[in-house]
């Protein structure tokens, strides 16, 4: 009963979201405020409705109603309740519903704001949100019904049906298949919803962009309205990516965190356009330039978000993430095509209105460097896109399927990343409007010399690797320049306001949140870069089979195998095998590591959990590869030493901090925004 009820709600919500889009559109053209209001209320209704549908699904999952195919596939009796709940997004049908649910939540949030002066945007924001929501609900209703149940028909076939077929018997399995053990990890519990939060929230700025294009209100109002929203969206997307990396590092047991897998790339691509967008909107706000470009970026981001969901969910590309082939591929393709062409059509229609208000003059001006930053992000995007679609292209033209692996992305992207880092070091010192080599050189020479000194120190004490040294130089440069910016700003306040240094620093950041939050994000990126350079360039590994008290040595570490034990956990249906290994350096016992292999009986699958000792200089990452069950004497280990990788995760925390500073809502924001918007108008009128 609950299953039909849930399905019924999906159908009702689908119709409702179609109605809201239609009513908003008709209301706009007929200037009927009542109709638009009706559309708005329909949007508001989608969220409680989908919440009920989601609760129905969760109830089925927790109850273990295995006649429902989705429940059968992603849960089992032995799973703890929290995993049964989060199994909601453990499979395709459920995660599509999760997408829709988030979409309805964000759409409702947006329509609840005070619209006042922006009333004309409202109908079109509703249209975009309604159409997007309707599309995802349609996928659930037509192709991937999470509420479909298992029946056996007369000819003996077992399949899932939304409605019981004639003369069939329901199939009631006593236990489910259970969630893939690899996905039973805290990182995996949070990673998909974070990524989806990021994906879905980018629909909102896109909706405002479309509203601006349709209504012809093409000033920067739409950007100001969605600025904060975009930052939060970006935060979630970034965190989704990072958590995925952390999960890979903790669970997949290959000593890495990022494999340039098509699915990883497909969630990285909207991040690239979004990051470019975050930068280039500042040019539009400050200088009235790049208006058309910003539209292109947000349209691309939306398309890539849908494309990303499609790639992760359709199995069109071979990837570790591609769980299943499914019928939803063509629908996605059509939806992306239609929305992309419509958006670009609108953009072309308004092209002339979006002309820049000023011309870029100096190649070293702040705006020119921002433009360069955008071009570099786009270049990384092109590299990634090329890598993902290259197998399809080569098959089309040569008949031979050729793929490119991680070396392609690393080789092609490394110079681009280096150039981006250099820009991060230089751009904060350049001036708006006009900069010359002399002015920039005057600001830069001190940090450059200090960074060179640090690089020389690294050369003497740490490495002779040229790529690493270039990387360390850039990291040092960016961090020094950025810290110098903080110091300079705080000193200026200290002089003019008579505050002590730390008060001055805190107030400086508080008054210019976006700027200094942004700088903190730059520093966090550099910390991450240290980690990435460390693990990419200096990772070492060794392996061997040991008897008790024998040891492996790597990078000055000595790992002594002490013990192994194996036991069952009948409740969770798992067998654990855990080794005890002591880690020594210079004959001093540092710690004990417990690499483990979990064997899941119901899915007959092993899961290798590394034992990790993490410090700021390196990680010792130890895997239990194999062991002799009979004697319990010999065991095979693989050990990695991953230098500096911890900085990757430290950088992530700094990143979170930076985004929160940049995006935190403050009370006095509204009047400030209005004032600056007005002065911008006056300025453009004066031109």
């Amino acid at each position, binding site marked *: 009963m609950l299953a039909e009820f849930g399905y019924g709600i999906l159908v009702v919500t689908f119709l409702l979201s179609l109605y809201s889009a239609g009513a908003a559109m008709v209301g706009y053209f007929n200037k009927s405020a009542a109709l638009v209001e009706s559309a708005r209320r329909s949007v508001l209704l989608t969220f409680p409705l989908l919440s009920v549908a989601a609760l129905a699904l969760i109830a089925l999952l927790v109850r273990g109603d295995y006649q429902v195919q989705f429940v*059968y596939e992603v849960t089992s009796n032995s799973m703890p309740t929290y995993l049964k709940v989060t199994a909601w997004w453990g*499979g*395709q049908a459920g995660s599509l519903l999760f997408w829709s649910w988030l979409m309805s939540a964000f759409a409702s949030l947006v329509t609840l704001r005070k619209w006042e002066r922006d009333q004309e945007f409202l109908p079109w924001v509703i249209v975009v949100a309604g159409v997007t929501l309707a599309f995802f609900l349609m996928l659930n209703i037509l192709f991937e019904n999470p509420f479909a149940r*298992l029946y*056996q028909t007369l000819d003996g*076939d*077992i*399949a*899932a049906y939304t409605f019981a077929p004639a003369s069939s*018997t329901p*199939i*009631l*399995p006593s236990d489910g*298949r259970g969630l*893939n053990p690899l996905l039973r990890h805290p990182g995996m519990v949070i990673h998909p919803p974070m990524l989806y939060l990021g994906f879905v929230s980018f629909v909102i700025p896109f909706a405002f962009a479309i509203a601006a294009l349709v209504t012809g209100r093409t000033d920067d109002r739409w950007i100001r309205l969605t600025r904060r929203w975009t930052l939060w969206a970006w935060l979630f997307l970034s965190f989704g990516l990072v958590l995925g990396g952390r999960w890979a590092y903790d669970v997949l*047991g290959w000593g890495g965190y990022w494999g340039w897998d098509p699915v990883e790339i497909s969630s990285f691509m909207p991040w690239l356009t979004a990051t470019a967008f975050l930068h280039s909107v500042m040019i539009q706000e400050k200088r009235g330039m790049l208006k058309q470009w910003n539209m292109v970026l947000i349209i691309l981001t939306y398309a890539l978000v849908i494309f990303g969901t499609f790639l992760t969910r359709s199995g*069109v590309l*071979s990837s*570790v993430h591609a*769980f*299943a*082939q499914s019928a939803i591929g063509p629908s996605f393709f059509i939806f992306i095509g239609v929305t992309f062409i419509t958006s670009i059509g609108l953009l072309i229609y308004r092209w002339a209105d979006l002309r820049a208000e000023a*011309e*870029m*003059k100096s*190649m070293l001006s702040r705006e*020119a460097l921002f433009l*360069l930053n955008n*071009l*570099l992000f786009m*270049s990384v995007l*092109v*590299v990634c896109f*090329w890598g993902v679609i*290259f*197998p399809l292209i080569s098959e089309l033209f040569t008949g*031979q*399927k*050729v*793929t*490119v*692996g991680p*070396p*392609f992305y690393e*080789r*092609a992207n490394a*110079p681009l990343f280096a150039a981006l880092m250099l820009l991060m070091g230089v751009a904060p010192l350049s001036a708006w409007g006009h900069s010359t080599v002399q002015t920039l050189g005057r600001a830069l020479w001190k940090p450059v010399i200090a960074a060179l000194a640090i690089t020389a120190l690294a050369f003497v004490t740490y490495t002779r690797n040229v790529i690493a040294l270039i990387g360390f130089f850039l990291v040092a440069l960016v961090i020094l320049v950025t810290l110098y910016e903080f110091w300079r700003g705080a000193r200026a306040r200290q002089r003019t306001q008579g505050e002590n240094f730390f008060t001055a620093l805190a107030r400086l950041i508080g008054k210019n949140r976006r700027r200094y939050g942004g700088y903190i994000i730059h520093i966090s990126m550099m910390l991450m870069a240290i980690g990435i350079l460390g693990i990419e360039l200096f990772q070492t590994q060794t*392996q061997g*089979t040991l008897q008790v008290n024998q040891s492996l040595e790597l990078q000055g570490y000595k790992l002594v195998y002490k013990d192994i034990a194996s036991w069952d956990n009948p409740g969770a249906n798992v067998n654990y095998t855990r080794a005890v290994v002591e880690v020594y350096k210079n004959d001093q016992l540092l710690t004990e590591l417990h690499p483990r292999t979990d064997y899941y009986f119901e899915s*007959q*699958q*092993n*899961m*290798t959990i590394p034992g990790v000792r993490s410090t700021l200089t390196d990680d010792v990452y130890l*895997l239990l*590869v*194999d062991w002799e069950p009979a004697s319990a004497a*010999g065991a*095979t280990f*693989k050990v990695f030493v991953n230098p500096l990788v911890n900085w990757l995760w430290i950088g992530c925390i700094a990143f979170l901090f930076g985004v929160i500073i940049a995006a935190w809502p403050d009370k006095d924001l509204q009047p400030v925004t209005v004032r600056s918007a007005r002065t911008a108008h006056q300025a453009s009128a004066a031109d």
Partner: protein
Amino acid sequence: MGRSKFILGGLFILAAVVYLIFSSTQQSAEYFMTVDELKTKGSQVIDKSLRLSGAVIGDSIQYDPQTLTLTFEVANVPGDNAEIEAQGGLAEVLRAAVADPTRARVTVVYVGPKPDLLRSEAQAIMTGHLGTDGIFYAEELLLKCPTKYEEAVPEQVTGN
């Protein structure tokens, strides 16, 4: 003058990116092959960087933990998604490939930890090269078990 230097700069970046993409593609291209194609091309592809896909034959899996050397055979599965779908989906294709002794098979050698997902009827995607001895030496081994993830129809449920 003002405009032309920006256009020039843009063209320079474009050229650099195009160069990066094409040179990197050439350096790291991996030819995707099925076992059948590997058998027919044979000596032409020796020492080329290849990406081979096949169904793992469970009985052939041998692992020497002393040297971490893993040896197993894979049977041919079609490389084309549409073809796989036409034959009843990946799980079905893999099962048929393992059950059919007349299918082309190739021996694979891989050195490293034994992957958790390695078992009969898993799909192995291997990157490596074909040696002159006809053995495929894999440097990277990726495994997919369709039954582990989602599948349209459960195999072993009994109605009651």
